[in-house]
């Protein structure tokens, strides 16, 4: 079992270890820390201000630049939760449904395709691979109108199917590429050994390769989570029924209807909407950072 997480660990070690020892004089190091901290503070300030404003009475929000609320007010959360047609957890659950199925679809279909590209030999492999990389650069809006027509002909408008089903068809070239890169780093002897033991390609994939690809699958899952959770355009296009709104649509509706008068509750729901992303980021940042680092390098 120790072998299983080896490739990732090696990569992580490479990433996190400073190659050279601390450089520069203590003074120059201190000033660099100072600058980096200041930049970090400026970057995080909007987020911290959002969180703190969500706990202030609406009247206080714009008068205070500071982050510590003078008057604590948690009623924003209760008020925001029930401000729309449905309580806010309905939208959270809706988003969750789309996210979970998108993750399953992406992992399943992209891993299959990646295994074929990384390990198998068949006519046209190079051509298909090039085609796959080409779709990476294809702007999605070129496909928009015909895909919308197809989905509406299928009667899929106002369902989550247009948001979920494409993920089961390996349409996300980025994740295929990520997994191909990862699978190529696994020793080929594993496949040979499995084959000698009598495994067909499918069993080799399920029993040997897939368990080793857990880090790449985790990266895929986290990226899918974040992009689907934030996704605004697809739901805007396909979901009209307010009861089916995902979180971004609900927030948008909030802003349109109440935004001018209820800053506090709106900020509270904004915090609720980005909290899962921040949570997943903290839990899975190694996978995330490695994921985008490896795709950029190869």
């Amino acid at each position, binding site marked *: 079992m120790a072998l299983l997480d080896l490739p990732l660990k090696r990569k992580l070690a490479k990433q996190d270890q400073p190659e050279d020892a601390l450089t520069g004089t203590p003074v120059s190091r201190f000033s660099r820390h100072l600058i980096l901290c200041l930049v*970090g503070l400026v970057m995080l300030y909007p987020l911290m201000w*959002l969180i703190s404003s969500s706990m202030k009475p609406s009247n206080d929000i714009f008068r205070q630049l500071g982050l510590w609320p003078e008057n604590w007010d948690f009623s924003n959360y209760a008020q925001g939760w029930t401000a729309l047609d449905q309580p806010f957890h309905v939208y959270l659950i809706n988003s969750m449904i789309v996210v979970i199925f998108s993750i399953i679809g992406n992992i399943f279909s992209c891993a299959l395709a990646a295994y*074929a590209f990384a390990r198998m030999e068949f006519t046209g492999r190079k051509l298909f691979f090039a085609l796959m990389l080409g779709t990476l650069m294809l702007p999605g809006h070129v496909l928009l109108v015909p895909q919308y027509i197809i989905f509406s002909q299928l009667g899929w408008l106002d369902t989550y199917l247009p948001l979920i089903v494409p993920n089961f068809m390996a349409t996300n070239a980025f994740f295929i590429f990520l997994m191909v890169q990862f699978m190529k780093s696994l020793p080929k002897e594993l496949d040979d050994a499995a084959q000698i033991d009598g495994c067909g*390609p499918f069993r080799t994939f399920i029993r040997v390769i897939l368990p080793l690809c857990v880090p790449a699958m985790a990266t895929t899952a986290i990226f899918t989570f974040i992009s689907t959770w*934030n996704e605004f355009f697809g739901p805007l296009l396909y979901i009209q029924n307010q009861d089916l709104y995902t979180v971004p649509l609900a*927030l948008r509706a909030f802003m349109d209807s109440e935004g001018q008068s209820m800053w506090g509750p709106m900020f509270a729901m904004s915090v609720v909407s980005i909290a899962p992303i921040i949570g997943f980021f903290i839990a899975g940042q190694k996978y995330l950072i490695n994921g985008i680092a490896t795709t950029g390098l190869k």
Partner: protein
Amino acid sequence: MTVLTKQPPGAPTSAAAGGTPRIRPSRRRKQRSGYLFLLPWFLGMLFTVIPFFASLYLAFTDYNLFTEPNFVGLANFQAMFEDPRLIQSLKVTFIYTFVSVPISLAVALLVALVLNRGLQGLSIYRSVYYLPSLLGGSVAIVMLWRYIFGNDGIVNGFLGIFGIQGPAWVTDPQFSLSTLIVLNVWTFGSPMVIFLAGLRQVPGMYYEAASIDGASKWRQFRSITLPLISPIIFFNLIMQLIGSFQTFTQGYVMSGGTGGPADSTLFYNLYLYQKGFTEFEMGYASAMAWLLLMIIAIFTAINFIASKFWVFYDN
């Protein structure tokens, strides 16, 4: 049976093994299972290729979702060149792209360089700078931006400390786009992480050798770092360009879907959405999509050609 005859001569045949015949994966079977693994992807490609050509066809029609499309030749493309809102949306998208992409790449590279020089707490800084890039496209943050840059928002509040009367950032057409440029620069973390990973791969001995030869830090950066990470600069440039040409959510949420004030945040894709899905001029919207595709293709091609002169590949 053809499967068996294809076996290499040295391989034990099932007949010789005596027991139940077991066909070892031959070339052809391997071929077949390769395609089997790619089955979902093939379906996805059908779902990409067919709409791709369908939208090319629709670009030459007056399709409106409710009646049959009529072929109208180049009428949509002619109409585009006389459509002031289309010209405006191109202008907005170009300004946004050509201002925010170079700035965010420069900031990303600069911060990555500072971070890379053996500093404690690297992973904490990296996380802090990376986090905004996950949030920049979310409705919550664009909404937040609207209020940060609002009349009584914290930006003007901060300027007020120094006695500066800040403009009405969001409602003044002169400034509204700049708030979104700031938002895009705020998300420099993802190219930065890629830069960092690239910088780690530059062998430290190059710098040692250079400093023994008396090369200054700036000289080392110009002659070692820059050439060696130029493929990564190139990659980031391409991806950022393609991404920001397609900006939608930021303009939509900032302006409540209108692209206002005075069309100053009317991004190309926002206008495409308005044409296709609120006015249902789907033929025109398809033509717009193809124009954008061609623009992106031209810029990517220019980049690839230009890269021959400035991108350095090791092999």
